[in-house]
């Protein structure tokens, strides 16, 4: 906006934006096309036309969809300014255009006819926005004919894989670099204060918009100069708190026997740390996204850890309703001190697991892990059989010429079923098929019919990735 402010280009853009904002809530089918047409039309609409109107006074006829009374009102406000400054014309146009473009944005809600001027409808136009939020909520919920949305789907857009969008986003220049650097440096100056607060027995929870990973990891590195630090990525969809606690118990506290539930482990760590035998006086636990999916049911366990005077807990939350996780006794155990850590940094890592918009056919290793985390042991076994088969096949193929470039080895359905039955993973073909359907729904396993009519199944991942997944399943 800084460079081309006041040029004719900006103003129609603003209008376009409002029109398209409208397209979201347009009530009727077909309305959208009209708005889109209007969008195409607006850039060509010369702003000189408005200045002409200024000279001529109210237009005699309005074939335009803009309301003439609005036009007049806008003109009046503009005229006052125009008298004051002769050379301020461009800015005035800007003003006028914005004030006008805001109006038609809401018209779609209640104007019955798409064409023709609706004189005196100005009051109604404002109604949609003037209602309090709670009324709108109930209207939308129970009103029956709440605003309908258009039937557009994302299929109109080209598909982008996660890798592609990552590559694109890496090239996008950051906004507000200077200001955000200042914000970050201000946060960094508080490191010592946070240290002092933890020293005094408070656990710290950080909230605010923006990824807090980088800053907190930086803090963790500084803290690690004095005492061991465990970083737990709570946003990780396949996070297993038991494994994390085992890792803490074995690597930091040097405990060999770590069995039992997460709660047992937490009690064990709580009881052991700080004792003469332990040798570790204090330790820090940094939990990124303590509101993460896998940690939500373990808050009491984490609270047990936090209540130890030898363990200092730092956590971040991002979900806006995250405080609901803690009832008053859990919150007392955590002994939180809240700090606003708004960074505006993109949630690159945290959302890399979300497969919301990317190509659904390419689930990726993280997606597979995510799916597997929610399955039964038997189902995991079924996946393992196929994965191991594919790894073995691709190893054998290494010497021979590959059949097809990029092709993954496929397993005949019948032998797959037999292998699973031999390992007592399934008992009947029906359960096996239903399990496969589940995998297929989640795009973990694909199947196709071969030329001879037999069914072939495969996991669309290469052997190396499969190996990593199998490792992490153990």
């Amino acid at each position, binding site marked *: *906006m800084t460079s*081309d402010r006041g040029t004719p280009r900006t103003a129609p*853009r603003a209008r376009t934006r409002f*029109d*398209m*904002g409208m397209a*979201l809530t347009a009530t009727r089918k077909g309305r959208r096309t009209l708005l889109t047409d209007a969008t195409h039309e607006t850039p060509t609409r010369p702003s000189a036309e408005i200045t002409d109107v200024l000279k001529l006074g109210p237009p005699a006829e309005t074939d335009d969809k803009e309301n003439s009374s609005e036009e007049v009102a806008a003109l009046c406000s503009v005229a006052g*300014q125009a008298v004051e400054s002769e050379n301020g014309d461009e*800015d005035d146009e*800007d003003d006028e255009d914005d004030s006008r473009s805001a109006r038609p944005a809401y018209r779609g809600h209640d104007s019955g006819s798409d064409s023709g001027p609706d004189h005196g409808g100005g009051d109604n136009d404002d109604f949609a926005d003037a209602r309090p939020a*709670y009324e709108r909520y109930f209207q939308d919920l129970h009103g029956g004919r709440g605003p309908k*949305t*258009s039937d*557009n*789907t*994302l299929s109109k*857009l*080209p598909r*982008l894989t996660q890798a*592609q*969008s990552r590559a694109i986003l890496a090239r*996008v220049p950051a906004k*507000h670099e200077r200001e955000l650097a200042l914000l970050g440096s201000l946060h960094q100056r508080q*490191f*010592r204060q946070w240290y002092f607060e933890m*020293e005094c027995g408070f656990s710290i929870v950080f*909230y605010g*918009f923006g990824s807090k*990973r980088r800053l907190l*990891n930086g803090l*963790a*590195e*500084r803290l690690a100069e004095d005492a061991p*630090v*465990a*970083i737990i*990525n709570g946003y990780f969809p396949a*996070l297993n708190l038991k494994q994390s606690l085992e890792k803490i118990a074995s*690597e*930091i506290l040097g405990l060999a026997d770590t069995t039992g539930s997460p709660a047992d482990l937490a009690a064990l760590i709580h009881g052991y740390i700080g004792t003469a035998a332990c040798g570790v006086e204090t330790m820090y636990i940094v939990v990124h996204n303590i509101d993460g999916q896998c940690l939500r049911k373990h808050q*009491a366990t984490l609270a047990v850890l936090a209540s130890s005077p030898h363990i200092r807990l730092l956590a971040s*939350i*991002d*979900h*806006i*309703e995250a405080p609901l996780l803690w009832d*008053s*006794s859990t919150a*007392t155990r955590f002994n939180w*001190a809240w700090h*606003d850590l*708004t960074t505006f940094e993109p949630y*690159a890592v*945290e*959302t890399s697991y979300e497969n*919301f*918009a990317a190509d659904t056919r390419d689930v990726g290793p*993280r997606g597979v892990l995510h799916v597997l985390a929610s399955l039964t042991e038997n189902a995991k076994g079924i996946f393992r059989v196929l994965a191991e088969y594919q790894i073995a096949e691709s190893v054998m193929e290494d010497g021979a010429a590959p059949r097809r470039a990029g092709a993954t080895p496929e397993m005949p359905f019948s032998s797959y079923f037999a292998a699973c039955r031999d390992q007592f993973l399934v008992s009947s073909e029906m359960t096996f098929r239903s399990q496969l359907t589940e995998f297929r729904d989640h795009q973990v396993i694909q199947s196709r019919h071969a030329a001879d009519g037999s069914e072939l199944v495969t996991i669309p991942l290469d052997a190396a*990735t499969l190996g*990593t997944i199998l490792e992490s399943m153990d």
Partner: protein
Amino acid sequence: MAEAYRPMDAYDSMTDSTFILKPPGRQGGPGGASKGGALSADGGFVRLLQGREPAESLALRRRLFEEMWAPLEALLVEIEREVNSVGILEVCDFVDSSYAQIETSEKGRLAQPFAEVAAAVAFAGVNTDDHGKLFQSLQGQLQARGHHVALLESQYCGLQPNMHRCVLEQLFGSLHADLDAGGSASEPRSVAYDLGLLGLWWAAARDRAKQSGSSAATTTSKVVVILQDFEGFPPMVVDDFIRIATSYCDAVPIVLVLGLATSYECVQQSLTKVSISMLNVERFNLQRSKQCIDTAIRRIFVEGAAALLFGAEAYKSLLDQFLLYSFSIAGFVKKLKYAAMDFFYAHPLSVLAGMLALPLGASVGACPIRLCSDQIELVRMQRSVQRFVERQAEGEGGKAFVRRALTDDAFLQDVVLPQMLRRLVAYRQGYCVGIDMAAEIQALAPESARKPVRTLHYYGLSRPFDDCAHWKALLATVRRLKPAEMALLLQGLSRAAERPAGIDWALVSEDGTDVPRALRDAAEMLADPDKAAADAPTKAAAAGAPRRTRARTEVAGRPLRFFDSAISDAQLCALDKCCEAVEAVLRVCLRPYHDVPLSEVFYYRHSHLLDTTFSAQPRAAVQTALGRPRYYIDCDCCAPADAKDGVASDDAEGEDQRIMPTMEDASIAYRLHQECGRMINVYDWYTSFASVVEGQGRAAPSQSEIQARFMRAVEEMRFLGFIKATQRKTDHVVRLTWGA
């Protein structure tokens, strides 16, 4: 097909979610690069005054914090223990006396046609935060009386076996010590947790006790099972437990203690009739958090056990958190501690607290620190200090005093500062007397007009004497008193005024009113009204005959005294004088703290900090960051054009309406989604996003870039919980938040 995953940094991995960093002394861990000083240097304290603060000042602040907080914490624990001890003793006595008839004779047991478990229902109040401490002290008390106690929390007792295990583990833990003493160690882990074991164990324990001869202790001891948060237990589990316990209660004297936060209805609703009929219930009230907070406020704030006091707003925040939110002592202590931390961590003049503790006549050398010039300058900048110094100008040699105070750092520190601190100390003592006197007067007022000390203190802090309706009500009470009552009151007030030793009344107020003396004078006058009238003949003579009638108008608001015709004119006059004396005395003692020198330093003011630290609103913060980013990013680019030209600079609302292409992507997506209804079409959302972004100054971004940025923004919105996916319509999301 899928490319190998590339981690973003050292702490991102596809398979691992936990990373361990160890101090550089030990091996392992990807971190450990040292940059800058360690955070732990000086315990995290930083030099204030742009780093110009001397090191010893920093060390002193750190030391003062520790010296102040440790005794204060101990005091709070002590207060809590004391206040709770009454209720706890009642429960202990109940446990002692339960099953009395069974213990006395074998026949007693036979006489019972039905089995009953003794149960104490302890109402502990809604402040569940404090229950842990309360029930732990109950457990301690019971154990001290030789009982075997298991303290259960609902989170570990979701299922029957878990509950049995908790009970037996805790009991056998205490038994284990017995067994070890007896020399027969066993493995408690290998036990199948069955309450039947309890009977065996009990019989064995009793036998052993008989052998060792300590029969007195064992015969009266019981097995006490405390359910700390009864509401949290699954009703079925408790139900079953009661039935099982009943079947053993002729062998083992089991006493249940049910901790309740709500009401007894909760027990009646959750347990079945059968199991309730098996309970021999007695109720106890352990809710004492209000007494506790009153005592704490009196000791800490009124009597001034701590150097740091709370100003009106901060005190209100503290009190509101308690009264309107949770009745939680723990929350109160937490805020208090944080305020003390903030004071000593961030206030460069907090070192003065070290001088406050000095005895009055201490020599200059006893002062723990020389202030640096920045700190001296800061002292001079305080409004109350300026007022104090200005007042000195009036006296003899005042001008010279002021000049030295303003130019000579050493003079300020050695002469002026101790004077001011003495005044502050004297004011606090006087204030404490004032609150005591108000309480004394209150005792004579009707029940409805009495306020607890926490409220009296709030009035004392927040309102000037003349603006406070409560003080006026108290004075009205005084005016209604009869001579005999007035005499008693004056005695009480004198006692209150003389209780704290060593108050220099000349320093308490500006005009140096000697409160005890004023009270004594008033008492004398009341005792001998005629003499007083004779002492002031001129006024009485001038008033002459019409005084009775004038009294009628004067005392319009004081009906009781007026209609008591037995009172002579002289007495009336003396009563009037007494009322005036009491009012004057109260006015001296309860004047607001703002006038006192250095009050800005010692009366904590950062109520906002306490609120944001303990009652944070993360959702509002995120919404502000997205909807009004200029509060976080003070940038030029996102301000609308006309605002920059100053045309509409004060029209903040209008400014907020614009969506600028220079804003953060998530901000744009958030603002657009606010215009939508419940269902949002993602494609249309994308289109409007694109139309905003394309307006950017630089070359218009490519379609794929816009798409990627939009998708990232949408993912972030979902991650934050503003929208969620839905199956109701293809490529739609549901909006989840409404309002600002």
